[in-house]
């Protein structure tokens, strides 16, 4: 198992390297625009441009340029946003990360719990009236885009009913966990629910299918022949085996969300996370920030994938030798 983990992280590092090269090529080797202008901004004065050219080694061979960029990103961490001169990219990302993690981890807990409960219940009740009803809730959840649902939630909790039912809902924004855990949770409650609803629907539907097909497996018949209770068969056998594909999907979704895919939710609820950072950078074509967030996102997706594979091996003994 340990060898497997080491091997998996080694290959993750390799993938990270490949991605960084790719990002480098996109920003520094695509023809047409002067890379110095991309870093320094289109309206930069010649002196700044010259300074950028020198510090990024734009007059030197490609491999050197790559190493210099990595140095600016990872060692000196002095890549600057060109919209807000002087504000550095890496600290911005470091600051935004806990916001995104708070949002995504909370939502993930909710959607996994809701998805597993709904999917398993629907599978156990297949053929009865409750099954299509649960699945309908799932479809509705999947069909509501986060930017629309978020705005509606805001409209209701901040305007329409704010004076009556939802007077306890704080204004959009973020409070740090270490600052005030209660306010942290209160500020994140509706963002969590909004983000979780989408995924809960997808996971419930997927899990229902997995559990239903697991219930038709021979090993479930064996479990029945052993005299186990239906509940034990459902949870310990059918659900346990059905979680394997769910976990791999979860890893991908989780990695992507932490990497910035929760952008819409963050923007709608005014949460200063990675998604919001990326959104603002995109609006201003702030390329150094975009470059930073792209690499950051890639890092989380790759990390999540590696963790999923390790978890997968824990869940499925057959995968340990692969």
């Amino acid at each position, binding site marked *: 198992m340990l060898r497997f983990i080491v091997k998996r992280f080694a290959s993750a590092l390799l993938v990270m390297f490949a991605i960084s090269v790719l990002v480098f090529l996109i920003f520094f080797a695509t023809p047409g625009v002067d890379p110095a202008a991309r870093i320094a901004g289109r309206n930069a004065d010649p002196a700044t441009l010259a300074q950028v050219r020198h510090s990024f080694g734009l007059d030197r061979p490609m491999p050197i340029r790559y190493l210099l960029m990595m140095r600016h990103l990872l060692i000196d961490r002095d890549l600057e946003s060109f919209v807000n001169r002087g504000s550095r990219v890496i600290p911005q990302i470091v600051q935004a990360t806990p916001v995104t993690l708070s949002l995504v981890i909370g939502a993930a807990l909710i959607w996994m719990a809701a998805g597993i409960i709904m999917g398993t219940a629907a599978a156990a009740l297949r053929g009865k009236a409750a099954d299509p009803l649960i699945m309908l809730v799932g479809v509705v959840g999947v069909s509501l885009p986060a930017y629309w649902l978020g705005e509606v939630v805001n409209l209701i909790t901040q305007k329409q009913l704010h004076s009556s039912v939802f007077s306890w809902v704080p204004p959009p924004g973020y409070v740090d966990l270490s600052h005030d855990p209660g306010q942290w949770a209160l500020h994140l409650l509706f963002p969590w629910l909004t983000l979780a609803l989408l995924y809960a629907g997808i996971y419930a539907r997927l899990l229902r299918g997995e559990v239903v097909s697991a219930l038709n497996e*021979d090993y479930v018949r064996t479990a029945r022949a*052993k*005299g186990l209770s239906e509940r034990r068969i459902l949870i310990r056998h059918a659900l346990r085996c059905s979680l394997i594909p769910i976990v791999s999907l979860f890893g991908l979704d989780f990695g992507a969300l932490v990497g910035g895919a929760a952008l819409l939710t963050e923007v709608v609820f005014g949460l200063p996370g990675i998604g919001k950072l990326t959104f603002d950078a995109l609006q201003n074509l702030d390329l150094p920030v975009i470059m930073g967030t792209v690499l950051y996102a890639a890092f989380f997706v790759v990390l999540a994938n590696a963790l999923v594979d390790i978890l997968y091996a824990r869940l*499925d*003994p*057959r995968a340990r030798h692969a």
Partner: protein
Amino acid sequence: MPDQPLLDVRDLRVSFRTRRGSVTVVDDLSFSVSPGEILGVVGESGSGKSVSMLAVLRLLTSPNVTVEGEVRFRGRDLLTLPDKEMRAVRGREIAMVFQDPMTALTPVYTVGWQIAEQIRAHEKVSRKAAHARAVGLLSDVGIPDAASRANAYPHEFSGGMRQRAVIAMALSCGPALLIADEPTTALDVTVQAQILDLMRELNAQGSAVVLITHDMGVISQIADRVLVMYGGRAAEEGPRRAVFHGPRHPYTWGLLDSVPRVGGSRLRRLPTIAGMPVAPGSLPEGCAFAPRCRLRHERCEERPVLSIGSAGADVGSGADAHRDACWLPDDDRASLRLTSRSAATDVPDLEREATP
């Protein structure tokens, strides 16, 4: 009859609701199993052997299945037993082994864990004690180094090993009846013999066994009594010796004749049963085998009942009775069988001779 039957199935009928109406796959099947006896149930695919056994244990969970009749086990009717009591019967009093050992075990748990799980489902024992018993059972069924193999996952076992593990699991609570559904079909011939030995040993310890198979060879090695099924109905039933030496139903003749003989004279063509097995749902009103039978006559329009023939030295009574469901005259079955066999090999010369 000194012994009450352990399992007594009366008029079992299993039907599936399909888009084209109700399809009966087991039709008025009656049989019984005495304590300590090995009953071989034989028939082609689709003859209803597996389904009837699954129905006995109430393992047909699809809402589209209806099971009617009576399944008396130690005096209780299993079909009307409350779910909770039925669960106590499954695994503890009646155990079942399925055909495909590859898929019969849950892939994510160790073999020892799965055996211990069954023990703990029926007895109040500690996790540790259950595991120790699982190791003992694995070693009993001939798995070397059982203590460490118990911690292996099913995919780390070979097919034969897995079937042994499944049998060990079935034996874990000392069942009075073991239903084995084609336990050797998916295995190598050498492994088959070992599994059959295991069944025999288990039987020697007092468990009755119902062995479902389509292999006449397996039946001839191990069964005390034989039930031949065709189209969801019983075609013939009797002691092994009687069925093998004096088979009475044309379908049994076909089954016996189509077994290739090692060392026998080389045939130009193996005898086969003409036609295809009858599809459930298109069963004829009369004898199910009539469409494929070379000896059918008007009477076959009428449904034959399983009954004791009027002639023959092997006719007994009760569990020893040799019954068949066929309208052919009882006294010259042997010569009829010869006629039918020569027709089955389909050699043109013989056919010309047979035609008057």
